[in-house]
């Protein structure tokens, strides 16, 4: 046990090439952005969302705890992965962008459907007719998700055409 050994002194290899890494990085950043916007805009600035709602179930609390923690980790991890891709000049831009759209849209949709509706964690806003808010919330998420998937498919088609 040599005391001066740093927290990690291992060598690196290469599995998970730049294509997959770009997508994963985008997904993490996307989830991070959606979670950040949710927290900052809707909880802190607008005060539409409530920290805790009397109808919150235990399952809702657990799911929310996971997602809140994951949002922060995804943001930090995604940024560092992006920096790593950039310093290696290995970013595959369309896949990164697709990842951001799929990640943020997917998170938004999960939050809107599972957290708000299924688990009744809290609502988009209180004291108003909810339906338009719910529709906008979830449609925005679905649109981003679909756009991301379409972008991913288009990039894959182009790649295939290029390589023959």
């Amino acid at each position, binding site marked *: 046990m040599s005391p001066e050994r740093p927290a990690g002194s291992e060598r*690196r290899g290469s599995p998970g090439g730049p294509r997959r890494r770009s997508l994963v990085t985008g997904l993490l950043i996307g989830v991070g952005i959606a979670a950040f916007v949710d927290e900052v805009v809707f909880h802190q600035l607008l005060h539409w969302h409530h920290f805790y709602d009397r109808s919150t179930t235990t399952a809702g609390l657990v799911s929310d705890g996971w997602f809140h923690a994951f949002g922060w980790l995804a943001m930090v991890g995604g940024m560092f992965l992006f920096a790593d891709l950039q310093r290696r000049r290995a970013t595959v831009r369309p896949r990164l962008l697709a990842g951001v759209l799929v990640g943020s849209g997917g998170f938004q949709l999960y939050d809107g459907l599972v957290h708000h509706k299924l688990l009744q964690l809290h609502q988009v806003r209180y004291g108003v007719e909810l339906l338009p808010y719910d529709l906008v919330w979830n449609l925005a998420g679905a649109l981003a998700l679909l756009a991301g998937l379409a972008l991913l498919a288009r990039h894959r088609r182009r790649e295939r055409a290029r390589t023959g």
Partner: protein
Amino acid sequence: MTPLLPEAVAVAAWAGLGAYLWAESRLHRRGDRWPVARTAVAAAAVLSASAAALWPVRTLVDEVAVHLLLTMLAPLLLALSAPVSLALRTLPRAPRRVLLALLHSRWARAVTWAPVVLVLQVGGVAVFWLAPLPHALHGPLMVHMLAAGWLFSTCLVGRDPVPGRPGTLGRAVLLLVAAAAHHVVAKLLYARGGGSGAELLFYGGDAVEVATALVLCAQWYERTRPRPGRDARADVTGGEVGRLRDRRRVPAR
């Protein structure tokens, strides 16, 4: 906290810092180097712990502040200051041998094993905030949380070597589980009328989680830095990207 314990914590923290500086001066005298950043975080850990110890506790908010400073922030800083490595390098032969025997004991292996560390960490927090504890147990449990927090931070980002420490991805999962559990505890406390104390627990926990994640990622980023020559070619071909999972060789005993 129970009476007398705050003073004991503060005294122990400053005595620890004294020992740290003394050990460092021994290193310098024999011409060895010790990163100044480690000394700085050691001092910051002691400041955080003694601020917590001297904090006047009147409301739940105060109690939460003490918890955040003493059992979350201070352990993180302590882990970054590599106290065990410093001790191993500077202790006289006899106590050094005792410390090594302790570190290599089956007991030490057990309490530094990631799942055990996680249970100690999360269990302490959950029991402290949610179980109906007699007042006399608050102090001892605080000490447990401090120790568990140190093990947890050491396992995640500590500068001291830990045999069998999980890779970066495993450590991220460990951090995720602990942070999620912390959030759930904070909301359950809120549901019981914890009010702004519970909110501070929630968001203060966030701050330490993010700080830990930043250190964890920065260490990974530094470790996987492309080395000129070997990796330059791979960059041109767009081939290699840094591994997420670290292959770690456990040092031979």
